[in-house]
């Protein structure tokens, strides 16, 4: 599309609006708001602000049902990031964001710029970023495309965080053919802010001065927000110009400069120029303050000559921010920016007329009332109807799959699961991330939750990201609730009390009734689980249109859960600590193989009813784990999820500090099959170990908390056998062999990828 001159453009009308992704209803609404036809620049502004990416038009009515308030919540949804009070005068700012479409097209830059964007969302609140987490989905690794994407995404996430100096301390990676052409790249950032320095992204009063800061504006990423709101087609590789290029060094300068500006009280508000760039940052900041804003695009520093207002308004060049300061504060701001070698320019001012007025060299090219543009975008509700095929999958008879004919079959299934890339060690990934910069990392990747110390206090921060697209595909409401429960369980296994949630909703096209049904039900499930667990939602991100000609992805809500440890030294590791310790299993194992990794890996089936989730049981388990950790009764605690108890116990054994140890256990469950006992994924369970002397008080505490718990065996010697018996079958493997399969699964599939990108 060629924008023409500063004021003119292609013939205005509903067809041009349709080319901009605006419906006929939306076009009529624009005419009504303006009382005239829009200019070309105005059409671009409406198109960007009313894109799904900026307006959340099909998800917001659903998101409004989520619980957002709680004792610890300082800032809920609607700001650059959510904030919870973690004690000692500290606020924890955190948010998750997706960069799926850019990563599908150009994995290295897509992932890198995703990291950059979420970092800016956190430091513009005045918070110093202290940790990144990534939640990734790729196709099966036997596909060269999937290996190329994994390699590029890991390098992109890694290089960006490594260069800015923010450790990536946790995450999850799942492989399934449904993600082959549409990988998911979700990145969560945690930052710490003194609560008295918390900055919100508003413009403040009329008369305040508006500056752009950071990189110059180029023609890259124009209309990226609209791109993210479309399905990926066969011709999407041609969309590379819509993918931006990251510059982590400039990001680092922006980070330091922003924090210095806030620390010295020189700014009123700051916002990243993320999706829809200058347009969204300027209009959202002014709308939050109930003010108006006027800018002149000719004053924006650009990379090339001849850029039109349309292009300048919609560019998504990276590492740029909009900064508002009080009149007379410009020089002090500029001085800080010059110290960090950053460019800046005054481009406008805050007004009192509630309008977004854009001039180009003085000439008005856009004038739009902010409230209908930003505050009241058109909302859409689509028809919701479950796909009948999914109902049939759920109802599928799994009796045959529950048969384990011999001990050899049990052993083979366990080894197959340990070798499944979704289950296996992700060391190959996180060793490419700087995990220790910042000297706050107390528990690194590879545990249930990562833990950071909170400097100057005895406290610790724990966090985990979790999602399970298979469950949500089979049963959206239950699957999404399980994602919340699992994230809470992971945080609690580390000894921390879960506090709050950020979510990233990765779905297909909401225009399809089956997808809108998934979205509606999943949001309901998240809401139910967050209420039951007392963990409100403080923000997040919605990524729709994750579809390719091959169809939609599994609906994948990803939950980022943060928690706090009153005493960081009371943290609990995931792996066994000492031979001779008692192994205790908590929770109830049921005949539940539906949706399991076992069914997928061993039987090639994505079917059945996902495990039931009793939210009271889930909350009781969390409370029990936190109390047991606080009283020092636990040597280790590990969540039971993908691969069931057999995988959980094997992980506890092979990840032991100093090398793999053995374990001897007998799994109990009345009338439950050996397969379900070993590999079923019944919810609200954990594998614990404790010193022999702590067994009695631990079981007593479980009883008092109403949590089923029983001794199930003992930790064996270094290098010893892993033997897990259940209903007449035993899965047995030597610990070093299991460790080798688990450790080699990713590297052996990726060893030929080195050097493909950058």
């Amino acid at each position, binding site marked *: 599309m060629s924008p023409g001159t500063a004021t003119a453009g292609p013939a205005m009308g509903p067809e041009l609006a349709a080319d901009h992704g605006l419906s006929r209803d939306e076009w009529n609404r624009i005419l009504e708001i303006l009382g005239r036809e829009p200019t070309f620049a105005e059409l671009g502004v409406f198109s960007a602000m009313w894109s799904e990416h900026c307006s959340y038009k099909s998800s917001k009515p659903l998101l409004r049902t989520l619980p957002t308030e709680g004792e610890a919540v300082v800032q809920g949804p609607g700001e650059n990031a959510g904030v919870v009070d973690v004690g000692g005068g500290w606020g924890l700012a955190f948010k998750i964001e997706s960069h799926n479409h850019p990563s599908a097209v150009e994995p290295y830059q897509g992932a890198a710029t995703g990291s950059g964007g979420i970092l800016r969302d956190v430091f513009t609140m005045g918070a110093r970023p202290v940790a990144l987490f990534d939640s990734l989905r790729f196709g099966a690794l036997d596909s060269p495309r999937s290996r190329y994407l994994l390699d590029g995404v890991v390098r992109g996430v*890694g*290089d960006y965080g*490594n*260069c800015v100096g923010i450790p990536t301390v946790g995450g999850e990676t799942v492989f399934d053919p449904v993600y082959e052409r549409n990988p998911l790249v979700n990145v969560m950032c945690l930052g710490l802010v003194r609560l008295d320095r918390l900055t919100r992204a508003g413009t403040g009063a009329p008369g305040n001065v508006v500056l752009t800061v950071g990189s110059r504006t180029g023609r890259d990423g124009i209309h990226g927000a609209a791109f993210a709101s479309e399905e990926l087609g066969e011709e999407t590789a041609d969309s590379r110009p819509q993918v931006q290029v990251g510059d*982590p060094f400039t990001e680092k300068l922006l980070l330091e400069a922003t924090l210095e500006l806030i620390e010295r009280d020189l700014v009123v508000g700051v916002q990243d120029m993320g999706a829809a760039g200058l347009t969204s940052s300027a209009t959202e900041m002014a709308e939050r303050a109930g003010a108006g804003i006027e800018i002149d695009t000719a004053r924006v520093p650009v990379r090339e000559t001849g850029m039109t207002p349309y292009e300048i308004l919609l560019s998504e060049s990276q590492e740029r921010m909009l900064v508002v300061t009080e009149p007379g504060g410009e020089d002090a701001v500029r001085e800080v920016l010059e110290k960090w070698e950053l460019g800046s320019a005054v481009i406008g001012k805050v007004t009192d007329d509630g309008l977004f007025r854009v001039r180009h060299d003085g000439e008005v090219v856009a004038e739009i009332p902010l409230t209908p543009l930003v505050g009241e975008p058109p909302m859409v509700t689509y028809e919701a109807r479950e796909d009948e095929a999914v109902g049939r999958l759920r109802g599928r008879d799994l009796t045959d799959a529950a048969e384990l004919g011999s001990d050899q079959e049990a052993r083979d299934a366990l080894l197959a699961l340990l070798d499944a890339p979704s289950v296996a060690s992700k060391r190959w990934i996180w060793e490419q991330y*700087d*995990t*220790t*910069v910042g000297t706050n990392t107390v528990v690194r990747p590879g545990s249930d939750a990562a833990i950071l110390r909170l400097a100057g206090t005895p406290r610790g921060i724990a966090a985990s990201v979790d999602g399970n697209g298979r469950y949500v595909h089979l049963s959206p409401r239950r699957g999404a609730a399980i994602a919340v429960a699992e994230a809470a369980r992971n945080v609690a296994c580390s000894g921390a009390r879960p506090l709050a949630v950020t979510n990233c909703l990765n779905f297909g096209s909401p225009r399809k009734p089956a997808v809108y049904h998934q979205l509606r039900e999943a949001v309901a499930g998240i809401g139910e689980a967050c209420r039951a667990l007392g963990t409100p939602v403080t923000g997040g991100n919605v990524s729709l249109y994750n579809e390719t000609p091959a169809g939609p992805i599994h609906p994948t809500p990803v939950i980022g859960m943060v928690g706090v440890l009153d005493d960081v030294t009371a943290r609990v590791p995931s792996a066994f600590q000492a031979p001779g310790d008692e192994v205790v299993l908590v929770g109830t194992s049921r005949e539940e193989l539906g949706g399991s990794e076992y069914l997928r890996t061993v039987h090639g089936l994505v079917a059945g009813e996902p495990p039931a989730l009793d939210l009271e049981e889930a909350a009781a388990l969390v409370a029990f784990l936190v109390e047991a950790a606080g009283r020092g009764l636990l040597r280790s605690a590990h969540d039971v999820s993908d691969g069931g108890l057999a995988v959980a116990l094997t992980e506890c054994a092979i990840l032991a500090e100093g090398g793999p140890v053995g374990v001897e256990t007998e799994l109990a469950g009345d009338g439950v099959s050996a397969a379900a006992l070993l590999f079923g994924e019944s919810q609200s369970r954990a594998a614990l170990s404790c010193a022999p002397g702590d067994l009695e008080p631990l079981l007593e505490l479980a009883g008092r908390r109403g949590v089923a718990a029983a001794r199930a065996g003992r930790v064996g010697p270094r290098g010893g056998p892993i033997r897990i018996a259940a209903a007449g079958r035993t899965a047995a493997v030597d610990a070093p062999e299991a460790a080798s399969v688990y450790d080699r699964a990713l590297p052996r599939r990726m060893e030929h990828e080195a050097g493909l990108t950058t």
Partner: protein
Amino acid sequence: MRFGIVRFPGSNCDADCHRAVEEGLGEDAFYLWHRDRDLGGADAILLPGGFAYGDYLRAGAIARFSPIMKAVESFARAGGPVLGICNGFQILCEAGLLPGALARNAALRFLSHDVHLSVERTDTAFTGAYRRGQVLRMPLSHGEGRFVADATTLDRLEEEGRVVFRYVDAEGNATPEANPNGSLRAIAGVCNEARNVVGLMPHPDRAYAAILGSNDGLGVFRSALAATAAAAS
């Protein structure tokens, strides 16, 4: 004692060094800016890790031309203790204060995990607090950390006892598996002829307290304290 920590715009382990000195060692640390022309009375200089000027060209290649590096060079030539960690090591090599160079890791990937190092020499400004042959554990985190030099230089470094740290396994053996990045002769750190300038790729600044997984790195900073006290007496 006062440690001056040089901050380049892209330094990102400056705060880690600061905490290691103040929290770990209990001595004073202060920051120097890359545009400064003097060292503010520092008793020892730390060049921290990071990406000094973005390092899109070659790690440390531009930093050596910064104003502060002139002051660091005179300080070093006068015998002042100077430690370069990670990117700081790369800068010292680029500036010619240390021999050799740091090339891309043999596996061509960024690497971040704990490694074991043996202390090969205790007669430098930053290793006096260790025993010779002592095995240390600390994190490493870099994309360009493979120590390289021509054979003559390597032989001379060995002869002159200027290989300060080597990558080893937990038992202290220099096995091929223990060498994470393909460094020639498993060299993790070296010093200059006068033994007051030391550089290493792993991060003692991230191993100064047990809660971080190791406090083996603290001896590096403690050694400087002893060396400075000895020089003053």
